[in-house]
């Protein structure tokens, strides 16, 4: 049995979580997931400014902090902290923690190969809209394929303490140690499915241990010291989800089930680079004491195509707010919204979308929100997006004047004018597996 923990569900997750996992009990492998889709675009912007950046900056200092534990207890780390620049990430880890052996997994980055791929007949059509990639070709900023767990397992076999990847399937970080330790083969579909499903449960960190859990959230123990999840993985495919004793949060059927169904589509076909896992095949057994056993996983052969995440410049956006108080807070906010819209129309500015929310009334749930007779205050929140940056910039000048010239008592403008932000959007596409050759490099 090996223990695989996840100490980071996204870049920006709790800084102390990985340290607490390592210091708080037995762990063999620690995985850290830094890459949400949004993150790739942020990293891309950073690499554009400085070619030595483009990775998760929090990662190297964390490894330096954990260096003694890693060496003394032979804990091994797998992280997609490499972002769009895994080599630079590895060099920074080596600089801060010179005693550690570091390997990187490369081959996910297809930005320089896009034209060749298209020329070879791959249309890279948008999986959601069906549009061909030529539509956005000149605006593409990054293009990465989701790699599977086998190259990561190969990196572990090199003896590296630290395995750094760019884009890979989130759950592959947890599957890789199982492949390496248990000798699972590329066509052990049921075993690979069991590893992927357990990996899916822990990939979002504390979402498996009571975080963001609707079931009985009011009684969740000690959120402030919530324990991050770990898998006790068995060679035959049985997985126990648990956390260190004495930590906050909880692991039970409800917390694990909520995470199982998180961000999935067809549960019979959870598609990953290594296997198509069937979530309807598994059995959960709540063993009590914060332990849930997952067994019976079935898998089908891996897909012929790999998913690529391609980011491209979409346009510009800005969001601005004003706050109105009772009485008639909502009416004041609605009036202000009309004034802004009328002025934008008079300026004949072109926007793809103007979106208004009355925060405190309908921002999250629209017409489904419970009706309140007289809200104490309402935040008017107007967002615009479009291709014309000048129009977005002009919008940012149109809210604050209402403090003097609109409905009475406008407040909440202390943060100043809204900021214009670039919108980088995502283009999910498929590429044939045989066009992608992952490789492992040990960084000295």
């Amino acid at each position: 049995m090996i223990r695989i923990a996840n100490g980071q569900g996204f870049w920006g997750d709790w800084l102390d979580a990985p340290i607490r996992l390592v210091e708080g009990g037995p762990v063999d492998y620690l995985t850290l997931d830094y890459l949400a889709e949004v993150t790739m675009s942020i990293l891309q912007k950073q690499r554009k400014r400085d070619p030595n950046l483009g990775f998760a900056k929090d990662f190297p200092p964390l490894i330096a902090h954990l260096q003694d534990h890693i060496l003394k207890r032979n804990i091994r780390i797998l992280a997609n902290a490499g972002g769009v620049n895994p080599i630079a990430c590895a060099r920074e880890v080596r600089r801060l923690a010179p005693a550690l052996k570091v390997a990187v997994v490369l081959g996910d980055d297809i930005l320089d190969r896009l034209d060749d791929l298209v020329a070879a007949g791959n249309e890279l059509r948008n999986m959601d809209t069906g549009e061909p990639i030529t539509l956005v070709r000149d605006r593409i900023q990054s293009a990465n394929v989701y790699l599977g767990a086998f190259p990561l397992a190969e990196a572990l076999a090199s003896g590296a303490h630290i395995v750094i990847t760019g884009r890979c399937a989130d759950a592959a970080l947890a599957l890789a140690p199982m492949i390496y330790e248990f000798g699972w083969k590329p066509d052990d579909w049921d075993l690979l499915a069991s590893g992927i499903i357990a990996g899916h449960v822990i990939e979002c960190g504390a979402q498996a241990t009571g975080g963001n859990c609707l079931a009985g959230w009011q009684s969740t123990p000690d959120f402030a010291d919530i324990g991050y999840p770990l898998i006790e993985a068995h060679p035959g495919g049985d997985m126990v989800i648990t956390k260190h004793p004495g930590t906050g949060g909880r692991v039970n059927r409800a917390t694990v089930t909520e995470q199982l169904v998180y961000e999935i589509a067809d549960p019979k076909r959870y598609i990953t680079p290594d296997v198509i896992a069937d979530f309807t095949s598994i059995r959960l057994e709540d063993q009590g004491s914060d332990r849930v056993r997952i067994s019976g996983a079935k898998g089908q052969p891996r897909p012929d195509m790999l998913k690529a995440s391609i980011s491209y410049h979409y346009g510009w956006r800005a969001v601005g707010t004003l706050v109105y108080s009772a009485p008639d807070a909502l009416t004041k906010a609605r009036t202000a919204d009309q004034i802004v819209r009328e002025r934008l129309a008079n300026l004949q500015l072109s926007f793809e979308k103007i979106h208004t929310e009355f925060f405190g009334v309908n921002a999250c749930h629209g017409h489904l929100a419970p009706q309140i007779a007289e809200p104490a205050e309402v935040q008017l929140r107007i967002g615009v997006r479009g291709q014309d940056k000048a129009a977005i910039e002009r919008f940012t000048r149109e809210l604050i004047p209402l403090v003097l010239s609109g409905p009475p008592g406008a407040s909440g403008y202390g943060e100043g004018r809204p900021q214009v932000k670039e919108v980088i959007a995502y283009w999910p596409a498929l590429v044939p597996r045989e066009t992608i050759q992952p490789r492992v490099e040990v960084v000295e």
Partner: protein
Amino acid sequence: MKISLSQIAHARSGDKGDTSNIGLIAYDPRHYHVLVREVTARRVKQHFGELVQGAVTRYELPNLGALNFVMEKALDGGGTISLRTDAQGKTYAAALLAMEIEVEPHELDR
């Protein structure tokens, strides 16, 4: 009688691009069949109205006592594009649980 879905089920929602999914889970596996009968894809589409512009597909996970709803064009473009406060559909789970469903009183016996 009418009850709020939140009385017999919990849920979690999230995003993939402009698609949002909601996993709906019976607190008691014996109530799973009530979810299957009452919470159809059509009703979920109606419930969300203009918030969800695209199709709603329902998948069944009887082993977990759960249904999964995949809602397309549900997030004003999603991710980085969306201008909504909840651009990732994190609060859609709670919105679904506010739905009223019809049950026979004996169906709630445990």
